[in-house]
């Protein structure tokens, strides 16, 4: 096995293992931490695909910002394993079936695609490097890019409006 393959399998095992940890961990804080490990493993995959920018942004945005807020909330709510409400059987059964269906669809989709016989697909191209990504975004995909930035702006304004204190009527 080449170094790339070893890295690929290591990262895959890490990503899947920690993703399973997220849903099985007793304490919510532990599952948040496992989720952070998952993001790191996925970033490692991006680096293997030579998409350095995406890898770093994934760490900055997801692991560095969003998960910190998650951790904030979980720590302050002081959730314990005991206080978790019991779900009823019907709901669990429905969850099992729908989850299984999704899994089945994904497996069949993967079986039909042509990547089945390739273990590690390396992208030697440099589309993921920041120069090419920037040019691509600002030349070919300028309108979708700008629209998504407006979407972010509206989300920000929405957060400010919600978070604003209401004036006390005198």
């Amino acid at each position: 096995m080449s170094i790339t393959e070893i890295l690929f399998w290591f990262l895959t095992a890490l990503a899947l293992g920690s993703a399973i940890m997220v849903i099985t961990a007793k304490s919510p804080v532990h599952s948040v931490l496992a989720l952070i490990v998952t993001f790191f493993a996925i970033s490692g995959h991006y680096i293997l695909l030579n998409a350095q920018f995406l890898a770093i942004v994934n760490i900055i945005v997801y692991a560095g910002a969003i998960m910190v807020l998650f951790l904030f909330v979980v720590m302050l709510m002081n959730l314990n394993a005991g206080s978790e409400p019991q779900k009823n059987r019907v709901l669990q059964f429905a969850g099992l079936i729908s989850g299984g269906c999704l899994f089945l669809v994904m497996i069949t989709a993967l079986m039909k695609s042509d990547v089945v016989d390739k273990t590690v697909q390396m992208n030697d191209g440099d589309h993921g490097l920041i120069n090419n990504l920037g040019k691509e975004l600002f030349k070919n995909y300028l309108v979708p890019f700008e629209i998504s930035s407006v979407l972010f702006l509206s989300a920000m304004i929405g957060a400010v409006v919600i978070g604003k204190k209401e004036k006390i009527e005198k």
Partner: protein
Amino acid sequence: MLLAIDLALIIEKLVLIIIVVMASLGIAMYTTFAERKVAAILQDRRGPNRAGPFGLLQPLADGVKLFFKEEIIPNFSSKFLFILGPSLAMLTAIMTGAVVPWGDKVHFFGRDISLQIADVNVGILYVFAVVSLGVYGIMIGSWASNNKFSLMGGLRAASQIISYELAMGLSLIALLMVTGTLSLKDMVLQQHSEGWHFRWNIIYQPLGFLIFLICAFAECNRTPFDLPEAENELIGGYHTEYSSMKLGFYLFSEYINMFISSVIMSTLFFGGYDIPFLNEANLSVNIAALLGILALMAKVCFFLFLFMWVRWTIPRFRYDQLMNLGWRVLIPLALVNMLVTGGLILLKQNHWHF
């Protein structure tokens, strides 16, 4: 193959990594000493002067003391997370050194060895990623302490770091517009002075530097922004429950962070290992590299002194003042700086015609 690696390269990088880590630890160690000396001088005292000549062995004595202190892990706290906290703080503090160009290159054993561990083309973003991960060490440690005051300190630290990261990023965007690259190595090379033409980024981005400096203070939890460890409000802040070397790790990581942010500031705004008005090409490679490292270290020492000077001069902010400064002053200022820089760059491309 993307990952074709030869053995010599691995050894070379390994040696470099060990040197960088050891040097950061050593410098951080003596920064604690320097801090006490500077504090003493500013307060008209002598400072540590018992261990060794001029008290030079004081950091070693401190380290030994911390190692031999009793190690206490509070009941009802998650032991794993309690230990993970300081370890993460230390890890993220050291990791940043990987992308910093410490010098140009040296010539040994017939090989040109670059004095940078990894010249990734997203260098400055990597620094950001690591900085944003620095919160976890504090947050996890403070939560695992199972102590309300620790948790309050951790929350303060996290919200402070997140708030100031924004202004820091915005101030850097203006700098990136000027340099047009994310690689720290390229940035340093661009700042090399040609003859009498002086090209450090501080000339083009004075306001950006000021914002970056303030944010660096906040990110390192240094006075006047050391709210997370405000003794009179929070006992000891996020490390209240820590003892022995785990406490030492928290304190030590702060000094490493200071060192690394001084390095980053020198690299981004003060030419990195560049010596102004000196043409390095005239010297032999190794001499130039040595002089470059010394130049970088001189700049770093200046910034470290600045950190200490401010700490022992300016009193601590109140928490709402801190948040106001971050959100209402620095972020708008950084946005204006970005806008002006963009406008000037466009104007320059148009040969100064509107």
